[in-house]
């Protein structure tokens, strides 16, 4: 019996099918487990272990390497404030202190109402808008204390629901389309293309720019 919601379980199976080896789906699956529970629960870890043919200790050990995975429950919103170099120079530490006061929780902990978890992050690669703030990995581009407080109000009142899903949800765009060619056919295709290339190399045909080998019909608009 699956611990995952049925839609998540289905996405998990689709994900695994994308990789040559099951275990490669580990990180995306852990993101899904986090979407299912808001954090990585024991059950979620066990499910990922089963799906990737390994053990719970292995999955837990792997997950704990990565900052985005939470092994303990967190708030609905995980607020990250960057204090790395660019943000430091722009007042990131001060904004983090302010955030802690506004949310009523210390860095690394969760507010009493369970709504917010506050984290100090490393560089979030948005340094032109420093200091940088993310909520559930959505950039909120809120650099001043006042703007931060306004954002918190908006979150509380649900005005940002369309932009910021609850913690754990990462990619809301579902993968569509796919290769739909049997693996063996693909291998055969590649092998013959490579053989042709080798043959060309052996006949020492000069490889010059623009040497054409039209494989495509001309574009029809």
């Amino acid at each position, binding site marked *: 019996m699956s611990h995952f919601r049925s839609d998540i379980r289905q996405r998990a199976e689709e994900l695994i099918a994308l990789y040559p080896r099951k275990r490669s789906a580990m990180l995306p699956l852990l993101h899904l487990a986090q979407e299912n529970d808001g954090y990585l629960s*024991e059950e979620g*870890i*066990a499910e990922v272990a089963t799906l990737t043919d*390994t*053990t*719970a*200790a*292995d*999955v*837990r*050990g*792997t997950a*704990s*390497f990565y900052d985005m995975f939470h092994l303990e429950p967190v708030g609905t919103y995980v607020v990250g404030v960057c204090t790395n170099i660019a943000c430091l120079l722009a007042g990131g530490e001060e904004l983090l202190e302010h955030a802690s006061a506004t949310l009523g929780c210390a860095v690394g902990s969760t507010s009493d109402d369970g709504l917010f978890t506050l984290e100090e992050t490393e560089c979030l690669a948005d340094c032109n808008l420093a200091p940088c703030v993310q909520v559930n990995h959505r950039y909120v581009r809120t650099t001043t204390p006042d703007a931060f407080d306004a954002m918190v109000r908006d979150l509380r009142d649900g005005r940002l629901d369309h932009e910021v899903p609850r913690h754990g949800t990462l990619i809301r765009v579902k993968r569509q389309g796919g290769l739909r060619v049997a693996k063996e056919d693909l291998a055969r295709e590649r092998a013959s293309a490579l053989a042709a290339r080798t043959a060309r190399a052996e006949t020492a045909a000069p490889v010059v720019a623009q040497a054409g080998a039209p494989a495509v019909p001309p574009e029809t608009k």
Partner: protein
Amino acid sequence: MTEVIRTKVTITVDGRSVEASPGELLIEAAERAGSYVPRFCYHPRMEAVGMCRMCLVEVDGPRGATLQPACYLKVSDGMSVTTDSEKVKKAQDGVLEFLLANHPLDCPVCDKGGECPLQDQTLAHGSGETRFVEEKRHFVKPVSIGELVLLDRERCIQCARCTRFAADVAGDVEIAFAGRGDLIEVATSPSAPFDSVFSGNTVQICPVGALTAKPYRFSARPWDLEQVESTCTTCAVGCRVAVQSSGNRLTRVLGVDSEPVNHGWLCDKGRFTLDSIDANEASSDPLSAATRLTEPLVRVEGELRPVSWGVALTAAVQLLRDAGDADAVGAMGGASLTNEGAYAWERFLRTVVGTENIDAQFGDGLDPVLLQSLPLATIDDAANAPVVLTMTGDLREELPVLFLRLRESFVRHHRTLVELSSAPSALHSLAAHSLSVRPGETPAIARALVSGNLPVGTLVAETELHDVRGALGDGTGVVIVVGRANLAEDQRLVDEAIQVLAQGLPGARFLVVLRRSNVRGALDMGLSPRLRPGRGVEPSASGRDTTAQLAAMVAGTQRATVVLGGCLLGNVVNQDLACSALETSSVIAVTGHGGPSLAYADVVLPAQVQYERTGTVTNLEGRVTAVAPKIGAPGSAWSDVAIASELALTWGQDLGLDSIELCAKVIEDTTGYAALSVLQDQAFDGVVMGLSVTPVARHAMDPMAFPGIRSTRTVGLGESTGATSLLDAGTTTTTTGSTPTDVALARVDVPLADAYAFRLVLVRRLYDRGVAMQGSPALSGLVGATRLLVHPSDLDRLGLASGARVLVRAPGGDFGIDIDTDETVLRGTCVAPWGTLDANGDNVVAMMVDPSSPVTQLRLETP
């Protein structure tokens, strides 16, 4: 283009040139050149990871000399290396300082203190003063991560030896690194603790005191320990061990890196049962396995009373004489004896008493004559064979270190495993081909492998069979590992299958995996109706095997029985028969441990047990090694040679076996069996009987790889850094001369399958209710629950959920048992563990077996 294949390369280490094999690791080649490179994470029995960076040396390259890890770099021709430059020293000292920065330096209270590689390195190279003034990293001090292991994360130096062992060697990923950077720690999952049967190895190879064994913790300081090298006789693999004691108390058993056998590894049962030997002097109830027998006992007015040896021996002789004639006397057991003990008992029974009713097997083995006729393979042969065919139980549960050796071959060297599968096994996922064999089908599947014709109704697919036959060829290069996959399947079916394979795959060799400690040696010494000492065979001899003896006891024709060792009741599947037989016959028990069988004993003769005695033993591949005493036996327990000899004298005859050495000499003089020479030559890795095996010189022991072994005073070990001269085994071989085809086997017919019934597969567990486990405070709590396993679809068919209770309708009666599912159980079969008891203490598993049929069929119903 012809390629010149170079077999040797030359490298220069600190100005000296040394030859090396291409692909050899620099750290090894440098050591041979006399430059020992310091190290922590490197372990010769595991793939290098180059993580600790202690082994940095300067290697000349196109861009000048650069620092490279010697443990990871492979030598190449012309390589020039400096291991002692200022730059190297600074780098290594830097690493050491970094390692110590967060280390608690609590050596005085640490189990590893005195034998710690980190401590040794620090004393040798450390600067003595610390530049680290910051607060050290803090973790909660030792946390229990499994039944036997404690973890102190503050002491951990993140070398990944334990996690690599668990993942790569054992395949039990129950511990793994968690966290990142300097917060990295070894961790388990809260839902699955570190309960691998190999957990003790991680303690042994931890280069600091981060992992400690609960049973050993605080029991001794290394400098108090004395040590001998011996052989573990907990099972038939015969791992070489360093046995350590503090005074006359055993404190620790460590795995010795024996190239042909155990590579330094042990299973937890072998490592930790030592507390059953001397920790239980307090208990005196002879029916409890926790009791060490210290004096002879004789039953007086229904009660076992302590007596002198003289009284006990006289009573025993009286019982044997009272039986009437020699054929009314029998003996069973003997796997727990040394070869010398087995030989002495064989002589006493055959030449003094005159009986042929002698059997070291309990109906749980194989035809002894067939066994002696097979072309043999060593463990190394199996581990190096391109194709291995297994027809055994789960080797991890039966012969754990053999499992490790084979697993390495499949995982690391990608050799091919073909498995005849009857029940879930730890090697299953590594098998290239897995052919399902339901109980009773064993000979038919063997025949199909040879002929290509599948019997009707099997679970094996034509294509799979075809592929397997392709892989096996005529057997050349194939090693077939045979044992008893199912104790509820008649032995004769397995014998037949082996014979079929031996005939049909003439190129194949066999590794016979009988499980109980020295059962192989006992058979070699003639403890079997048709065998004679030195692997002699007397095909026409008639004598009763154990099963026949039990029947004769019940019938009243065998009136006196010698039971050698305490494990009879733990191993005879037909418990009812065994109990009534012991009830009816007079019983002389010879054993070092108490146990339930003693309820039936009239005379009890206390024997020395492992680590108290000297002699030789023979492992499953036929390797003879020496066992050495570390402590004296408690009370007045005697060696088996002494007991048999004194019994003979009491009877009125002299066996002429006045000492163990003399006994070994007689064995070797009369049969050519390498007993005395192994005992005297201290040939640590022993001699394989029946095969010509090139002896391999022991490596110098690296205390970094095996901390704890050489840092204590050694006896017969450690000094042997060069080649040990071994006997030429080929010349001392005794062989039977017969071939498997000659051996006459009894045939048996399998009843038709009952479509509504489940066929029972009775499998062995490492942690069972045997005497060794029950006598060990450290291990007795680890025996698993008795549960029945079926395939999930069969459970659906029964309309039951996993974990539910099912009603078993069995020959021995109806009873309830908890049921679970496993995808690898064959449909239409159910798997039960032998040697476990249910919650009421009943041996329900024994009640399931139908002794009147070659296979057992059970009805399962909802209660």
